[in-house]
């Protein structure tokens, strides 16, 4: 970890860093993420939604790479795009979508929901506008090359010591186990 706080706004062009992460990439990826996010919630056909969601996930993966978080990016591709989305596609194929895509798409409470979401958006906007000054306007350059090792150190511990998040990590694995059991029992026809 590099605790030096001297890197300024333009730390992406730091020494030793590849200057690949240009603003141009950011805008493309961000635009892709938001537009396909919009498609996710507007498409009639659930498979189209799922495909749009995959695009969103991949765009967000690109953003992670721009933030020098390669391990998180890899996990995102592996777990989200490869695993979870496959699960979604499977389920969409199992349930009868032909009928549901002809149905009414939005529930009766949609104006309320939309209003609530807009209120949330307003909250975000006001928070950003008011709080922008509070954010330290900086991007500290993290060493990309040792990112994975450091995350491993925090999760598993290093040099014989327990890591900061080792316990939480084990709990997470327990959570996954419970989820697996739950999903299997849920989908079995006869228990």
């Amino acid at each position, binding site marked *: 970890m590099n605790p030096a706080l001297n890197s300024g706004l333009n730390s992406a062009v730091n020494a030793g860093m590849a200057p690949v992460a240009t603003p141009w990439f950011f805008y493309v990826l961000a635009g892709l993420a938001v537009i396909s996010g919009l498609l996710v919630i507007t498409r009639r056909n659930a498979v189209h939604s799922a495909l749009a969601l995959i695009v969103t996930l991949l765009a967000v993966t690109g953003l992670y790479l721009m933030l020098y978080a390669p391990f998180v990016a890899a996990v995102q591709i592996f777990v989200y795009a490869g695993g979870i989305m496959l699960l979604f596609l499977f389920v969409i194929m*199992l349930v*009868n979508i032909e009928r549901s895509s002809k149905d009414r798409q939005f529930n009766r409470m949609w104006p309320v929901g939309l209003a609530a979401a807009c209120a949330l958006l307003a909250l975000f906007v006001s928070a950003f506008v008011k709080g922008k000054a509070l954010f330290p306007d900086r991007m500290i350059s993290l060493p990309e090359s040792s990112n994975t090792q450091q995350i491993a150190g925090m999760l598993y511990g290093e040099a014989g010591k327990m890591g900061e998040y080792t316990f939480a990590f084990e709990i997470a694995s327990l959570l996954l186990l419970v989820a697996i059991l739950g999903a299997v029992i849920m989908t079995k*026809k006869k228990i």
Partner: protein
Amino acid sequence: MNDSTRDDSNGALSNLDLETPEKPYLDSNELIINMGPQHPATHGVLRVILKLDGEKVLDTECVIGYLHRGVEKIAENRTYTMFNPYVDRMDYVAAVSNGLGYCEAVEKLMNVEAPARANYIRVILTELNRIASHQLWLGTHALDIGAMTPLFYTFRDREEILKIFERYCGARLTTHAFRIGGCQYETYAGFEKDVENFLTFVAPKIDEYEELLTTNRIWIERTKNVGVISAADAIALGVTGPVLRASGVKWDLRKAQPYAAYSEFDFDIPTGTNGDTYDRYLVRMAEMRQSLRIIEQAVNGIPEGPIMAKVPKIIKPPVGEIYHSIEAPKGELGYFIVSDGSTQPYRLRVRPPSFVNLQALDTMVRGLLVADVVAVIGTIDIVLGEVDR
């Protein structure tokens, strides 16, 4: 699945319960698919309507008749001699056997005996054809299960048999080799030599097929305990041929009701124990070897003499009816002929082994997977030309 319950099969033909019944717990995976008539693994134009739960077969129904040519009806409008070539078009991979059965049935009706030499020639050609038929079965069956290579090996070796047929009677597939009362052609010079060469050629080749498959783990896993049919079920369904013998019933018409010259040869009837696909495979492989034994004995002991019995120019069997059956490569091939004393059969009915054996498909595949349906269709060894006639 979006249209899983939509019935896209022909409802009138099907007596399956195609509607999902009203029940509190919905099986969302029930799926009805049509396998065939255009499908790589149904050996022609068989159509099997499968009712699946996921990939598990709940129910099947065979729809046949896509290759129906009305062979039996044609017989009523042809003289006995004219009808002879038609039988070759039923089981076209074992045309010689078909011809033998028909000729012997008519001979029996007319009380004519084919001469000894003719009978020996008949046995040699029929057994050669049995090997050819089994080879073709092995190739396509292996291809169905996913092994591509045996197909080409068996076709290479079957070619040698077809060459012998071609030299003997000029045709390779629909041979029309026999005539009522004996054989049309005397053996050509070098016939015995050709057959003996073939025997030495093909024996190691059969070992080669076995090397590829018999001990192959995947082959065993795909065929062992797949499509099991018990002896009792097989008999009840009228199954004959290798399928019956693989269930452990020692029933072979060549021994049970010897015809042609079969009583003079020494051969075994290979049987299986489990009645599964693997046993049927082993039985057929053993049968090929037994056929080689028969051919060897026949070629060595072929008598001199006439090849045609005294048969009138115009065949007019006496009034009566006859049922005669032979052991075709696929099972019992029977001809039932009713004669009204004219030159044409009053009624002719064929008992085709493929047709009867196909009945067992449903018993065999229930509860298995789609991939097994393919394997079982292959192992029953059907020829659609014979099923539909």
